[in-house]
């Protein structure tokens, strides 16, 4: 297994109290596989990724427990400089906002080449040649002419390609993409997602795709993990989850997106709001918003029940949820 996250806990100390952002998350990604982590803002999907890569702000953040096994090695136990070596060569991250992740006063060639100078000890001239190669690889037209240009001279889609090129530079075995297409237009979004999927196949990398968009996920993911209030509430192969979700939250999310191919009267809306992480409801954290909630949900926290060999759901009534769909 390429990456295994086991029972990860992350909390933030704030003036108002302890924010429990991640409460026991476990997932795994194999080489050549795409895992989509789906959740709304505040679900802990990005914080989990930051803890894996090791860019969590500490303090106020603190890893409360758990393991992050990368190729069998627990990253959380390593010293910062050892960890940096593993991370630099092994994993890379792509962020949502390409404009603010790129340095505006350095040319894109310099920024891409820097990776080779620092990690591979290349000369600046060789590094520049590699930068052009990378830009070609992510299909930026006229790479040789554009290598000396600055980020503001590129469009949003092109900037995101440069971010992808940067992530690919050291040929990592794992890429974590945090909302990589959220800031882009639909037509460009499709181009970037296709590029990511293609490169993943070509280079046989593991890909973790963090997103709130169920549509984007459907196109590229193999498996999906749905997060709510710092926990995984459902994991399943992508086809299964769309056909028949086994958790009421997933069901609600699917029902609340308007469909392009049909025009309904009223949209289904999950009532209420996501919980305040300072004060997560007892029992199942989704129970105040859940149409299926019964007394047991307010007291007993549901474990991740095994639905089938490849599926899990953290709902006491996963059978009923699945069954409802069949009706």
């Amino acid at each position, binding site marked *: 297994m390429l990456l295994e996250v086991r029972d990860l806990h992350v909390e933030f100390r704030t003036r108002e109290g302890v924010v429990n952002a991640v409460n026991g998350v476990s997932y795994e990604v194999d080489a050549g596989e795409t895992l989509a982590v789906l959740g709304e803002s505040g679900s802990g999907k990005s914080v989990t990724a930051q803890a894996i890569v090791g860019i969590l702000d500490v303090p106020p953040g603190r890893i409360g427990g758990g393991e992050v096994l990368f190729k069998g090695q627990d990253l959380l136990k390593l010293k910062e400089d050892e960890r940096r070596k593993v991370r630099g060569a092994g994993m890379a991250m792509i962020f949502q906002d390409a404009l603010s992740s790129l340095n505006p006063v350095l040319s894109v060639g310099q920024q891409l080449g820097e990776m080779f100078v620092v990690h591979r000890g290349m000369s600046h001239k060789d590094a520049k040649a590699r930068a052009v190669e990378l830009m070609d690889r992510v299909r930026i037209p006229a790479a040789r002419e554009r290598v000396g240009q600055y980020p503001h001279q590129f469009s949003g889609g092109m900037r995101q390609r440069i971010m992808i090129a940067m992530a690919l530079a050291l040929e990592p075995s794992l890429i974590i993409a945090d909302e990589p297409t959220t800031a882009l237009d639909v037509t460009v979004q*499709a181009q970037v997602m*296709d590029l990511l999927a293609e490169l993943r196949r070509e280079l046989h990398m593991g890909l973790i795709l963090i997103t709130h968009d169920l549509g984007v996920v459907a196109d590229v993911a193999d498996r999906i993990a749905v997060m709510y209030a710092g926990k995984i509430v459902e994991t399943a192969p992508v*086809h299964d989850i*769309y*056909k028949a979700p086994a958790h009421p939250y997933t069901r609600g999310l699917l029902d609340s997106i*308007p*469909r392009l191919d049909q025009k309904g009267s009223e949209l289904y809306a999950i009532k209420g709001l996501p919980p305040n992480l300072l004060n997560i409801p007892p029992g199942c954290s989704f129970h105040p918003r859940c149409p299926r909630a019964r007394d047991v949900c307010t007291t007993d926290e549901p474990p991740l029940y095994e639905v089938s060999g490849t599926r899990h759901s953290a709902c006491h009534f996963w059978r009923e949820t699945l069954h409802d769909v069949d009706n």
Partner: protein
Amino acid sequence: MTSTTESSVPAGTTSEPVLEVRDLVKHYPLTQGILFKRHVGAVKAVDGVSFDLARGETLGIVGESGCGKSTVAKMLVHLEEPTGGRIAFKGQDITGLSGRGMKSVRRNIQMVFQDPYTSLNPRMTVGDIIGEPFEIHPEVAPKGDRRRKVQDLLDVVGLNPEYINRYPHQFSGGQRQRIGIARGLALQPEVIVADEPVSALDVSVQAQVVNLMERLQSEFELSYVFIAHDLSIVRHISNRVAVMYLGKVVEIGTDTEIYEHPTHPYTQALLSAVPLPDPTDREHRERILLAGDVPSPANPPSGCHFRTRCWKAQEVCARVEPPLAVPEWFRDGGGPTAHPSACHFADESTAPPTGEPGKRPGAPDGGPGSGPGASGRPPEEA
């Protein structure tokens, strides 16, 4: 204020349109030099947009960033002065109005903004924010009555009326957008222009706000101009949809016409790029991946603006700008393909054209070929 004349009602609609927009243009000048600013060109943000909005109707406007959809919204509420063209509210031209005349018209056209975090003043209470329009238009609510009015509005948008003294930061994104909507409703307008009202919200909250807007529409007989880049949401809420590309409307029609029978290649590409939330659906659909980016509106391509990215483009597309009109070869047949589409090769099929422009693509001899050449002002819907 209510002059009920004007005869240019498009056939098909029964009542007079609330808003009539004709040839709306907004150019931003590009200058060079520090002391003596020379005009070196213009960014053609909006370049000749026309549409009607009927009472109680929702017109969706979709397009990618930079296509001019938000600039249209700003001109409708008079936050931007049009460079040319005409906006008429119930038959009265409002583009040249100033002072008192403008004030009374503005009451009737209100706006809901995209970002509920920056469009609410953090130092004002919710009561002050929603009540502020009454300061400018005291005729709507006399002073003593305002607090009760604001509480009514909070109740209407589904917020607890007791929250009247809270500040914006005490609310979540969805609740803030409700506050923005309540402020838009305060003056009992007839038209609400909503610019990406749900884009900043989480999926589960989006649905709540869309449902609220639909409920309010039927309750108060509002007309909406709903601008968004999310095609699924636009279809859900709109009666008619206009697709914009580089400052122009390229296709306009009812939601069925646009979503199920698009004839403009840009609309077809846009629809095919929308991620479907079901992997089984996506297996049997054809995806069109557009190459490249949207050209700069400061220097749009000649002829048809879309031709640089269009797989159907022929030599004629660079020469002649296709007018926004019902294509001749669809005009007689009626049916869902007979809606305005600004393409020389408008067709439901996405195959590259064969034969001459201005004829039904593929057909041996389809109608008199006078399609191209007739560029001019975009005609109304027929």
